């Protein structure tokens, strides 16, 4: 207001619709993203950081929180807290499902790329199906496979004179049973990632190698693997982030509490339970941030491992 009438400044052109439109339009057009980002990302992020330092039962209503400093973090990091148990479970299930995922997906993608070109679309579709299938449907099907008395797996074992195995009841077995589902669900996704990576590798390189008399194995080891590094880095990162936040599969398969002995209780489930069952929002928020730090650290380790050897880009 003041500068509009200020005599010391040159008079500005009066307000005009065209001018305002030109100025505002870009902001207006990008505003949906910023509004959504603000409401659904930035605000929750900030609020959870705020809550991490408070004790708050949501039923007390907004505003009725008490500042507790680092107490929530200390609680989670204390020896023998369930946070550690859940984190251990998460990492263990993550390894059991994540490592085989890549050990299978990479060679599989290579085989499809090299030998199954004609059926590539069909094969990829089939492999990709679990990824887009509803998690509830998946876990119900696996629940039937794993069922102790009625399940297919135990039926097959019984034919061999073995079992029955209590797949989802013995604490030591739960991570394997859950991990198998996670493996099955995401292996196709990784195959697709690697396939697209393989397609980006120029045929010339392979042709040159063929001329030099390289075997299929040598081509895989000396051409495919090094040139796939960026894609591997990407796929590993996604697996780390996804597995560390594992929630749906164990939640539906072994139940909210993590099943027998809590062996299927992942960090994300523990956070959810703490927030919505135990109504301790502060402790849950603090754990979310600790989980974020853990994911961040693991991603950094991954980054470091891939950028060794001088961070050579293909």
């Amino acid at each position, binding site marked *: 207001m003041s500068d509009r009438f200020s005599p010391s400044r040159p008079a500005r052109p009066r307000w005009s619709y065209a001018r305002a439109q030109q100025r505002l339009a870009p902001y207006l057009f990008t505003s949906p993203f910023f509004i959504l980002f603000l409401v659904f990302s930035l605000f929750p992020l900030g609020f959870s950081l705020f809550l991490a330092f408070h004790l708050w039962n949501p*039923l007390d*209503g907004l505003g009725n929180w008490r500042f507790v400093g680092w*107490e929530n973090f200390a609680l989670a990091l204390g020896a*023998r807290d369930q946070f550690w148990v859940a984190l251990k479970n998460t990492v263990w299930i993550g390894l059991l499902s994540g490592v085989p995922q890549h050990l299978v997906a990479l060679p599989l993608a290579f085989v499809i790329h090299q030998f199954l070109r004609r059926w590539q679309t069909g094969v990829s579709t089939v492999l990709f199906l679990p990824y887009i299938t509803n998690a509830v449907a998946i876990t119900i099907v696996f629940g*039937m496979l794993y069922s102790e008395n*009625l399940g297919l797996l135990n039926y097959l074992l019984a034919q061999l004179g073995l079992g029955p195995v209590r797949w989802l*009841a013995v604490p030591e077995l739960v991570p394997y049973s859950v991990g198998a589902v996670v493996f099955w669900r995401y292996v196709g996704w990784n195959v697709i990632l690697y396939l697209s990576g393989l397609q980006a590798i120029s045929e010339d390189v392979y042709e040159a190698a063929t001329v030099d008399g390289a075997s299929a194995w040598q081509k895989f080891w000396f051409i495919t693997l090094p040139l796939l590094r960026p894609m591997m880095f990407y796929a590993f990162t996604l697996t780390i982030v996804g597995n560390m936040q594992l929630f749906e599969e164990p939640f539906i398969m072994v139940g909210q*509490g993590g099943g027998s*002995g809590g062996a299927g209780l992942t960090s994300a489930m523990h956070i959810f339970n703490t927030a*919505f069952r135990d109504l301790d929002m502060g402790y849950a928020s603090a754990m979310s941030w600790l989980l974020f730090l853990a994911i961040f650290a693991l991603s950094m380790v991954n980054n470091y491992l891939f950028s060794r050897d001088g961070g050579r880009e293909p």
Partner: protein
Amino acid sequence: MHRTALTLAAALLLGSAHAQDKVTLTVAAFPSLDSAIKAIIPAWNKLHPNVTIKLQAQEFADHHNAMTTALATGQGLPDVMAIEIGYVSKFAEGRGLEDLNQAPYSAAQYKKLFTPFTIGQATSADKRFIAMPTDIGPGTFFYRKDILDKAGVNPASMTGSWEGFIAAGKTIKAKTGASLINTAASINNVIIRTNLKKGEGIYFDDKNNLLVGPDNARFVRAFTLSKQVRDAGLDAKIGEWSNEWYDAFKKGTVATQFSGAWLQGALQNWMAPDTKGLWRVQNLPEKGFASWGGSFYAIPSRAANKQWAWEFIKFMTLNQTSQITAFKDNGAFPALLTAQKDKAFSEAVPFLGGQKARILWRDAAARTQPIDVNRYDSVAEQIVQTELTNVLEQGKDVKQALADARAQIARRAR
């Protein structure tokens, strides 16, 4: 301009005046309470044709999560909120619900009309009464008469003492091959919630002292007897609400089940209708009386139509006909004492082989003591269950498990 504003204001005034004639009352509930409400709505409409009931029904967990969020933010609250027993103490400790002791509700006068223990469940530590009870779940002991007969076991021998219960289980297993119970953890669940001393809750006492621990005889006994059942191979190792559980009921591979009286309705309607006539009920062992389920109605402090909400709640909970309608609709056991005197209660229950089970349940409900509740009950429950599994599945020492449970709960209960 002014004229438009005036017209607008007039329209608004008229609108709000109109709204007083026609009221829409939102009621948020979960299955199978929603079914009871639907059954009662016609009677309500006859009495109050101007008040339309808008029922918002969600699945059990979704409903309570949604209500938690609504109470936290004060947004999206219904006028009447149904609350299940597992949540009522948590909601009571919060600040978002009306204290029905106060005017204009003055509900203190109605408390004596209900099964006594329900009042305590809906009362907060600072004595606010936040919800009216509508149905209760008297804890009871289901057994398969045919299996016990085949094994030559007298049901009375199973309810005298837990030792007798386990001894009978061994006979049943040997003579018929049937398991005594679905999971050994059930023994723990009954023992820790029965025969409490005055002022004791399950996990905490009324002075907020943690009771779980290696020195507490109740927990030591609960863990020890559960382990005995597991070690003797008497349980089927089946979790509740699983396909195996339903299958066991259908095939008769498990001889007994501890549950709320409502299980009879579930067995009869969908779990195992073909087992009609084979089941009987008794009171819980060692004269234990426990609450096993129940539902309540509350009014959020920020509800739009508190007056009508209260009328509706009174109609649901204090009206004998409504209570009987709900009972006939889905077996919701009335919390209202006069409704329990209805002639339907002295009728034989065909599914239970003609046993007059409702009289037994009514008596059990009257003898059930109020249990002190604590806002950290769900934390304690989870930790105790996990430690019990460690004992059952991994052979962890009972006292060590209870000491660990105590330490973990103490850290979380701040």
